[in-house]
């Protein structure tokens, strides 16, 4: 595989995938998409970055460890679930506010963002954990 082409492609493709994933996450409540799918797309961007530039660069691009992503995601999902006690009657009771110009916003959307973050953390966690020791991109081609 030609690393130059791959790196050039990844340089433009990875950010595009991130934007795509956020768009899928946002529209997921009304059209195909959502936290799982968005998270998988964003995770693929991390994987692509790792293949092109190596795991160290991918970890840097992630801005935080996979563990941190999963922790933040769990905290968001659990927080949204616990908000059910505040605004509703029990765990996971959904609460909505109608924001003019944007549409209804509610705790299920926070929950979905949490799912997104956990999936991103898990996908990048598996990839970085399974990355062969000392294998930087192009190492075996050289």
């Amino acid at each position, binding site marked *: 595989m030609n690393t130059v082409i791959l790196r050039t492609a990844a340089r433009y493709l990875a950010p595009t995938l991130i934007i795509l994933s956020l768009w899928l996450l946002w529209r997921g409540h009304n059209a*195909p998409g959502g936290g*799982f799918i968005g998270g998988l797309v964003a995770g693929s961007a991390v994987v692509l970055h790792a293949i092109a530039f190596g795991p160290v660069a991918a970890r840097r691009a992630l801005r935080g460890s996979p563990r941190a992503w999963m922790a933040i995601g769990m905290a968001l999902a659990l927080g949204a679930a616990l908000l059910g006690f505040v605004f509703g009657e029990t765990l996971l009771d959904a609460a909505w506010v109608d924001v003019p110009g944007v549409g209804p916003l509610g705790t299920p959307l926070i929950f979905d963002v949490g799912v997104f973050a956990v999936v991103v953390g*898990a996908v990048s966690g*598996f990839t970085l954990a*399974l990355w062969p020791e000392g294998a930087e991109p192009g190492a075996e081609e050289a």
Partner: protein
Amino acid sequence: MHGLMSLVVGALFAAGVYLMLKREILHVLVGLTLVGNGANLAIFVASGARVAPPPLVPDGLDAPLAGHADPLPQALILTAIVIGFGVLGFALALARRSTETLGTDDLDRLPTTEGQGT
């Protein structure tokens, strides 16, 4: 149509089980993933899959189009796919670690744990 798909699901299971009974860890894991795919398709087919509009509410309506696909099995399968991925990832990490520690990917050569049944 679902008769044909029952055959396909059965074939996926058979292929997956055949691979899971091999000695090499990689083939076992490929088999496991095939069985997972087969299980997801089994739920989908058994719940009455047919060519139908997706369970989306079109603009201006209150409910999906008549005859839309059943959303519940889809929700179940969606998470099952992701969970299956998670299980595979964990199993790969386990396989990687055991082959590196024990020097073989042959399941028949792995040392057994001590104290069986005592």
